[in-house]
């Protein structure tokens, strides 16, 4: 029996435990979740014995090569919500403001108000758009300050994706500075702040607690 994935994942997340992925049958979540129709494709048991001629149960095909530390390090620059991976370096709001004007304002507007589509606004704490009322009012504009749950996401995203046409061109200290500028412009941190790994980890976004897990499970009813 397979568990219903989305609700099983939901239950596991809520319980804060890890998914025993390889033998999901034993999870305590199983009884709480609806069963997946039996005919659904699953590769859980599609092991090295599944295709005739293969090496057999419990074996590997042993294709591919060991990934060296340097190969992994080249791409492994992601920064997760806790910020444990944040690199050395630091940057101030003032430095970020100057960088923003020269590198970002052409698309995102002076002060981050947004540009011509698809260049989104980055800054805005208009009181009418506070309170996370986005479902109630489709006209409200989402910004980093009134929507984003984690400040670390900003560092990760700027570093991997911006400026749009020259991603990867910023130093880590420049990314800290731009992150600091955008957080200050969104009234999340003071204008005098200098961000480094510890300082960024400590930033708490205003609406962090508003994000909830998916409760749609299929079956009758609208959620």
């Amino acid at each position: 029996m397979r568990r219903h994935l989305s609700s099983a994942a939901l239950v596991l997340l809520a319980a804060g435990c890890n998914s025993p992925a390889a033998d999901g049958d034993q999870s305590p979540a199983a009884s709480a979740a609806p069963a997946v129709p039996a005919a659904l494709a699953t590769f859980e048991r599609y092991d090295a014995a599944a295709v005739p001629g293969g090496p057999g149960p419990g074996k590997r095909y042993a294709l591919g090569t060991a990934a060296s530390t340097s190969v992994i390090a080249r791409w492994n620059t992601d920064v997760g919500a806790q910020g444990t991976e944040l690199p050395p370096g630091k940057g101030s709001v003032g430095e970020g403001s100057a960088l923003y004007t020269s590198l970002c304002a052409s698309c995102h507007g002076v002060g981050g108000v947004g540009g011509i589509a698809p260049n989104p606004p980055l800054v805005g704490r208009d009181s009418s758009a506070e309170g996370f009322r986005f479902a109630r009012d489709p006209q409200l504009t989402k910004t980093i300050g009134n929507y984003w749950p984690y400040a670390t996401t900003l560092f990760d995203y700027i570093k991997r994706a911006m400026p749009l046409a020259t991603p990867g061109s910023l130093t880590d200290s420049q990314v800290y500075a731009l992150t600091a500028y955008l957080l200050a412009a969104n009234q999340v941190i003071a204008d005098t702040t200098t961000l480094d790994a510890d300082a960024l980890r400590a930033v708490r976004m205003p609406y962090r607690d508003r994000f909830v897990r998916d409760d749609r499970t299929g079956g009758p009813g609208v959620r």
Partner: protein
Amino acid sequence: MRVESNAPQGDGHHEGHNGDREDGLHGAPNDRSASEHAVAPDGLTDARGTSVSRRVLLTGAAGVAAGALVSVLPGAAVGQGGTSAGASTPPPAPSRVPADPGSMLGAPTSAQGMRAAAVNPARVPVGAVSGSSRSPLGELTGTITPSDLHFERHHAGVPALDAATHRLVIHGLVDRPMEFSVDDIRRLPQVSRTYFIECSGNGRAPFKSPKPETTAQAAAGMTSNTEWTGVPLATLFREVGVKREASWFLAEGADACHMTRSVPVEKGWEDAMVVWAQNGEPLRPAQGYPLRLLLPGWEGNINLKWLRRLELGTQPWMTRWETSVYTDPLLGDTARQFSFVIDAKSVITSPSFPDVIGTRGWRPVTGLAWSGRGRIARVEVSTDGGASWHDAELSGTPQPKAHVRFQYMWNWRGEEALLLSRATDETGQVQPTRTALIDVRGPGTDYHFNAIVGWRVQPDGAVFYHGTT
């Protein structure tokens, strides 16, 4: 003319930022209405013998506009379209059919096939680099989307990758961090499965402000259905030895935004694949060449293209694509996160705007239905705006997480009619009305628009979109 109102709309990921701002290249509609005059004099009719002049104008013109747009898009040279008269090349001018084609020698064999000169289905590209293009659902039949017409959505253009040097690195909570070449992956056992991919922003603009002059392409063209070939992710998980404590993995693309999404490991064991082919040939660049993560039934964005890295961990990374965007505001002043699964949905593709039904009598009301939770169990059609519903035929056996085609035979006698379709999947989920979705999720709901929609048929035969169910 009505054609100009089929304004292209992006999947509008930033409408939430900007209210109802249009997310697209504003030159496109004008290009198309200008070019209609070049197409119109040929006076083509379709195989049904009914006048579809509005459709012919629209699609022929869209192709011309697409060609014009593509020339300014970075990466267009490696985009989809390839050999057909699709989005990346202007369609050839419809050639005159000779009075007796059999009286002269035909064209020779060719290296790569072309569509018939009068057939020019085209995507409508919107947005230069953070953009989308939709499948022309109103012109497609059956369930398989031709690869060059599979919808696109990308956030930093289509990268030009070399399959010979491309690598997939898998690391983190694994016994053996590994690097796989595309050739390594092709040497593992191959599986082929047919699945839809739908962008969770599909239908946003017509949901938010329904306009009569909306094609099936604009209403729902960010879903497509193809056969994918690749290796089960479970096989790669076994090769690297995913540790038991791993509960999430991060998938990363090699495009210019290096897109990242967090995925529960369980989905990786269940039915995820790393695919390298689509409809029998290597992936096209816009679909992720050379490698794409395929998560059947889950929102388009997480079916990550140009896959270069998988990192196993214990919690989601909270990337920009699972926080700032692809999260769904809810009443109660919260936002739903990790809303992966596509809900049960259907759309009638024929008749649809801009058809004009010229002839009374029998015709199929036909369309597509799909669900990210499994098979479609039932599709009902109404011709009276929902006062009465009738079971439609499902062609063939519905496959899980794949488009199924439905049809209902309808005898039009010239009356005003309102055609609607309503899908039910095997979990018992019934496609809701737009009003029901808004009641539950709020008017600012921003993804997963699976409301019942349809088409109003006027006594003069003109067909218009109806979204306010």
